[in-house]
């Protein structure tokens, strides 16, 4: 046995173990401190300081004292800091490869507080915050500047009235050319008079016998052939005239309708209809609401990858630089990371917030429990009370589900800029804000309804145009303002809807102002358009006279030719022969 075993090896082994434990006991604090600082600096790119570390082994707990993480974008300030954080770690779960924290307490968590000395920055992120101020009155209907000049409008060659007038002239010209060509082929007055003379001559011929009548009839029939040919030309001229009249009538009707179409187009182009229906509460308070919603979006964007990105596939978790844990079935399945209870006190400039968490994890499908977060404060801006109850969970497909309710009472606010632009500025100088709301998030779809009321409101601002002055007057005369803000759609770009009873009040006042101004504008534009119409129709009247003359000419020729065709020239001749025959027979029978 002694050949294979060296008994002093036992002593050696236990000596090594004891030395190792002693090393851990003596240097663990420093190692953990260095670990937190270095890994924090590597992640953040800026100096991270830990004042002290306390590591207790029974029960295992870690206390971090005086933590400060420099904001790489603003090294004179911390991104986050806290005075003390304690985490009670379950040793057995830790040895099995899981991090279960029974109690996590963070005291005096502060965001963006000033550092005693500027922190070192190792690298900064390329992404820059979009803090450029935008002209928030872009959506505000500035009626004074939005209405175009009437003269400029009427000079616009794209006006339908101008176009239709030009079309009418063109149409008349082309129709006139067709009619002139026909007019030239019409039988002239002289020709018709000649026909009449010829017919008269045939009528006045003295007939002595039936042969003479037959000859007259034959001559008349020859003449009639010319009448029929001319009649054909006249009928064709009549048809063309009717066609031209129809075309011109339709064109004139289009011209008459053009001013109305022009007005509708002007209304649309200059959004004159929208002035009446403007979503005024949204225009006024939308930017402010979006700003607050932006914080929620930012929080979601920062937290979401931490929750969902940690485990890409089911059962696989805790990705490390070198490998990962693979979990199999358990009798009592537990998530790989679990904070059973958390208590965080946040010191904000506005007051103190307390955040309490329960069963915080990113693997809710394993223990089938939702994480619960309660946030509350009773000293926001003095006497403001705030409470938020939130439950969230992730399923195996990494879909986040959040249900939350919040309530705010008597939050005193002062100097809140609502609109900032050269043309219009509005601020809430003082007021008490109360409200309640809820939001739900499922598969990145947000659904939130929030009712906010501002009591004892004291608004102030500056306005340059008549419309914005009216806005300002209406709002500054308001003591209590209620707003309902809804957000729906994708969480990163939700659709915001804001409504308020103030809407109707403002709309009424706007309509008064707008309708008066619009009515005058409409009159001026329509007068100009009607003048254009009258001018175009006046031209068409003179052209119309020519048409009437041509119609008279055609109708006259038509009537003459019809008469000539219907002329019964043999009737007189037949009478002559009858009379002659009667006379002869009377002489014969003693008359």
């Amino acid at each position, binding site marked *: 046995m002694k*050949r*294979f*075993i*060296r*008994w002093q*090896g*036992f002593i*050696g*082994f236990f000596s*090594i*173990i004891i030395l*190792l434990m002693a090393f851990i006991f003596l240097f663990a604090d420093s190692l953990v401190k260095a670990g937190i600082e270095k890994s924090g600096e590597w992640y953040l790119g800026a100096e991270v300081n830990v004042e002290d570390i306390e590591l207790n082994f029974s029960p295992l707990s870690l206390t971090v004292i005086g933590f400060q993480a420099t904001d790489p974008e603003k090294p004179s300030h911390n991104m986050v800091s806290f005075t003390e954080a304690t985490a009670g770690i379950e040793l057995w779960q830790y*040895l*099995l*490869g899981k991090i279960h924290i029974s109690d996590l307490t963070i005291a005096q968590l502060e965001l963006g507080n000033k550092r005693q000395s500027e922190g070192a920055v190792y690298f900064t992120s390329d992404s820059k915050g979009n803090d450029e101020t935008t002209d928030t009155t872009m959506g505000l209907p500035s009626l004074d500047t939005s209405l175009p000049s009437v003269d400029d409008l009427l000079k616009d060659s794209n006006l339908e009235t101008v176009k239709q007038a030009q079309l009418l002239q063109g149409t008349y010209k082309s129709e006139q050319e067709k009619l002139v060509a026909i007019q030239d082929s019409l039988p002239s007055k002289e020709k018709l008079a000649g026909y009449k003379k010829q017919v008269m001559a045939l009528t006045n011929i003295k007939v002595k016998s039936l042969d003479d009548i037959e000859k007259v009839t034959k001559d008349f029939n020859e003449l009639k052939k010319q009448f029929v040919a001319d009649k054909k030309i006249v009928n064709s001229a009549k048809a063309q005239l009717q066609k031209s009249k129809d075309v011109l009538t339709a064109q004139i009707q289009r011209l008459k309708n053009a001013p109305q179409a022009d007005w509708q187009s002007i209304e649309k182009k200059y959004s004159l209809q929208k002035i009446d229906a403007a979503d005024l509460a949204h225009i006024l308070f939308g930017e402010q609401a979006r700003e607050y919603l932006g914080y929620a979006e930012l929080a979601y964007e920062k937290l979401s990858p931490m929750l969902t990105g940690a485990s890409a596939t089911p059962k*696989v978790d805790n990705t*490390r630089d*070198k*490998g*990962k*844990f*693979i*979990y*199999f*079935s*358990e*009798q009592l399945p537990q998530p790989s990371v679990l904070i059973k209870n958390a208590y965080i006190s946040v010191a904000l400039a506005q007051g103190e917030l307390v955040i309490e968490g329960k069963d915080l994890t990113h693997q809710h499908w394993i223990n089938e429990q939702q994480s619960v977060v309660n946030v509350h404060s009773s000293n926001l801006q003095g006497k403001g009370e705030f409470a938020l109850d939130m439950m969230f969970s992730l399923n195996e497909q990494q879909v986040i589900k959040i249900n939350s309710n919040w309530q705010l009472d008597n939050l005193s606010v002062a100097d809140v800029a609502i609109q900032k632009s050269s043309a219009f500025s509005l601020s809430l100088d003082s007021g008490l804000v109360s409200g309640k709301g809820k939001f739900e998030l499922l598969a990145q779809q947000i659904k939130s309804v929030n009712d906010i009321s501002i009591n004892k409101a004291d608004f102030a601002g500056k306005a340059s145009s008549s419309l914005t002055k009216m806005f300002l007057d209406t709002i500054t005369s308001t003591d209590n303002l209620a707003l309902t803000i809804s957000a729906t759609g994708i969480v990163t770009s939700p659709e915001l809807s804001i409504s308020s009873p103030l809407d109707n009040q403002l709309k009424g006042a706007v309509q008064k102002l707008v309708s008066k101004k619009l009515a005058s504008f409409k009159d001026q534009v329509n007068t100009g358009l009607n003048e254009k119409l009258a001018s175009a129709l006046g031209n068409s009247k003179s052209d119309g006279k020519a048409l009437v003359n041509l119609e008279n000419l055609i109708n006259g020729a038509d009537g003459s030719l019809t008469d000539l065709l219907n002329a019964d020239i043999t009737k007189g001749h037949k009478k002559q022969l009858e009379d002659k025959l009667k006379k002869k027979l009377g002489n014969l029978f003693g008359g």
Partner: protein
Amino acid sequence: MLTLLVKLFQALNSESSTRQISLAISLGIIVGLSPILILHNLIILFMVLVIRVNLGAFILAVGVFKGLSYLLSPLILLIGESLLTSTSLYGLFDSLYQMSLFKLAHWHHTYILGALILGVILALPAYFISRYLIEKYRIHIKSFIDQFGIVKALKASKFYRLYLTMSGQGGMS
């Protein structure tokens, strides 16, 4: 570095059997490839200290394979992940997972299992190969090398004196 070389020569030239040195190298490979403070490494360390294996060779093997583990880490991860996520082995690992010892040893971690498996795979041939080479060294190479003038000069050097000092202290058998 100098000390490590001394240990190598000491082990090769010591009275330790070739089995003791080869076993030390094999166990050193397993420990070297895995993260140091892991349950199976503590067990191996216990074995190395209690069983009469050559500690110098063990320490040397650990040092060399610790360095090599950085190069071999993609292979180690591949082995560990393919084993732990293999559907055909799911039943085996699932039943092993029910044992606290399995979880305590972190064998459900892809790198640790991969390193253990690769270490074991390399340890077996390493045992026989190293044993063969040490035997050859002792019979042929040592006497062959000793004939060279440079070796004679080396034996007169500070390095050799250090070696002799350490050998004289013993305790590394």
